[in-house]
């Protein structure tokens, strides 16, 4: 056996221990200086600490690179610190939001709240009384009905854009894009104008669902379009080359191939609208009692339940609102993870 010495792989461009020492020392010094400033000057408090830390870090890193190299390097390190701070900043609100929801919402959570409604419970009654079954049922209804309306329209729109590619495709794509920016309150007003004023119907879960469907269509259409675009045109041609009509090719080959992506599109739409509040305030009436008829009579939904309790403002009502938010977040995050799971799963091609 001849001994061929293979050189050890190394990454000379990486940061090695020796080079990192000055940076670590600088970071340590920054912390110390910050602490000293906060301790021995009138600047006090968490906010002051953060701001001072930020300024000292910027100045220190700029000074170090400025001395080591030149002005350009100093500028570079200032921007680096600022960009890192911006990156970190994005994480804080979510952390705080999730933490507060759990902290404030968990107390009011009980199994009992999923079996009773608020029909006979006073706003300052203890948390053990009453529940949000009426809101859960309402949310269930509106999500189902909104999907039934928006999924066919959304997928047909996507099919028009990818399969028919008609003359209006560019225009429609543009309008669908713009439609996803419609304020939700406008959708509520519209349904109110059509369904209540013009057609004379009363508040109902179905009315709320119609408003949500308007918000859901663009999400479903745009995501489905992305998915359908990924189906290789080869497959369509193969279907047509074997004597399939366009209809049979789309129904038998394109849609089955895109199936899991299309399901993701639908769930994404559901996640988008499940927590909507504003349109429901104009269309559902906001009942406290369970209403099993989705087509007539005041009904509620979880966001509406949260809203109502928030406006009541008593201590227990606020606790109920936070529990409602917790339930709502669990539902939204469940749908959200479902889309991740489905789109993360390896497709068949």
């Amino acid at each position, binding site marked *: 056996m001849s001994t061929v010495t293979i050189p050890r792989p190394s990454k000379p461009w990486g940061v090695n221990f020796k080079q990192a020492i000055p940076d670590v020392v600088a970071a340590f010094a920054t912390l110390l200086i910050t602490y000293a400033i906060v301790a021995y000057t009138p600047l006090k408090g968490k906010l002051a600490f953060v701001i001072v830390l930020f300024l000292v870090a910027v100045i220190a890193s700029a000074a170090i690179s400025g001395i080591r190299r030149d002005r350009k390097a100093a500028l570079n390190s200032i921007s680096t610190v600022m960009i890192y701070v911006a990156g970190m900043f994005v994480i804080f609100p979510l952390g705080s939001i999730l933490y507060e929801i759990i902290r404030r919402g968990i107390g009011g959570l009980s199994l009992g709240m999923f079996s009773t409604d608020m029909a006979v419970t006073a706003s300052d009654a203890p948390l053990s009384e009453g529940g949000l079954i009426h809101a859960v049922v309402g949310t269930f209804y509106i999500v189902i009905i909104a999907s039934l309306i928006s999924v066919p329209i959304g997928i047909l729109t996507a099919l028009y854009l990818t399969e028919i590619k008609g003359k209006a495709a560019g225009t429609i794509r543009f309008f669908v894009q713009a439609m996803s920016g419609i304020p939700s309150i406008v959708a509520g007003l519209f349904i109110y104008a059509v369904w209540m004023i013009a057609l004379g119907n009363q508040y109902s879960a179905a009315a709320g669902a119609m408003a949500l469907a308007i918000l859901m269509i663009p999400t479903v259409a745009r995501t489905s379009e992305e998915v359908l675009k990924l189906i290789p045109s080869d497959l369509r041609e193969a279907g047509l080359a*074997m*004597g399939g*009509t366009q209809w049979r090719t789309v129904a038998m080959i394109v849609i089955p*191939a895109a*199936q899991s992506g299309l399901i993701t599109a639908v769930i994404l739409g559901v996640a988008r609208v499940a927590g909507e509040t504003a349109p429901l305030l104009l269309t559902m009436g906001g009942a406290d009692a369970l209403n099993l008829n989705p087509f007539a009579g005041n009904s509620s939904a979880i966001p509406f339940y949260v809203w109502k309790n928030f406006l009541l403002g008593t201590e227990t009502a606020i606790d109920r609102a936070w529990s409602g938010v917790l339930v709502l977040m669990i539902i939204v995050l469940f749908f959200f993870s479902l889309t991740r799971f489905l789109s993360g799963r390896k497709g068949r091609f």
Partner: protein
Amino acid sequence: MSQANPVHSLANVAAAHSASKGDHHIAGTGIEAKNIHAWFGDKHVIDDVSIDFFPGTVTALIGPSGCGKSTFIRILNRMHEFIPTAAMAGEVLLEGKDIYQSGTDVTKIRLGIGMVFQKPNPFPSMTIKENVLSGLKLAQLKVSNQSELLESCLVRAGLWNEVKDRLNEYGGALSGGQQQRLCIARSLAVSPQVLLMDEPCSALDPGSTLRIEETIRELSASMTIIIVTHNMQQAARVSDRTGFFLSDGGPGRLIECSSTSEIFSNPKDKRTEDYVTGRFG
């Protein structure tokens, strides 16, 4: 004379192939392209190509890329018109009838003229079995004995022994070469008279390529096959006749078309000789 070597070796292959094939019964229907022109928008891409594809033969279309071979065979089963800017002139006669005649049912035409694509493309949502029989569903044909048809198509495509125990697996689970033979089997299920193959081996390894070539030779006993290929050796190995396409920057033209051994050993046109000896392309 050393430069002539490739010609000789290819010519030998071609001659050997013709000899081995011998006289066979002419089967299937021929297809004839008459004065074909094609455009994409204002760009003229094929100029006046006429070829008569004889029944029961394999015709190879060779030429450098961009010379219009693929466009040409897509004209033969009316796939050309899927490109929105596409236009054409000339006639394609199948059983003596022009397939571009107005009022023709395009889906029926494509049933009679199957196609195998460059990249293997089994339908991802279907099993092997469903893939082979997909043509029946797509074209809404009725067949009394599906399992018999399934077996015969897979046998003819040379895939039966490899997949007979896994017919309910998804097509995507097969290797590239097997997938391509599955696509061939899929085309056979609707019993076309003509099979178009657009560089069917360009995405495959040499072993799978040989296997497909074998399949092509076996199939040629019963149908007319037209194969576009970049690979001159492949043309020499599988085809009875060869057409050479070339574009001088303008539209692609058919330089010459005759028996494969003639093209490789005794081409009439200087450009054909230059191409088959590897001076360009």
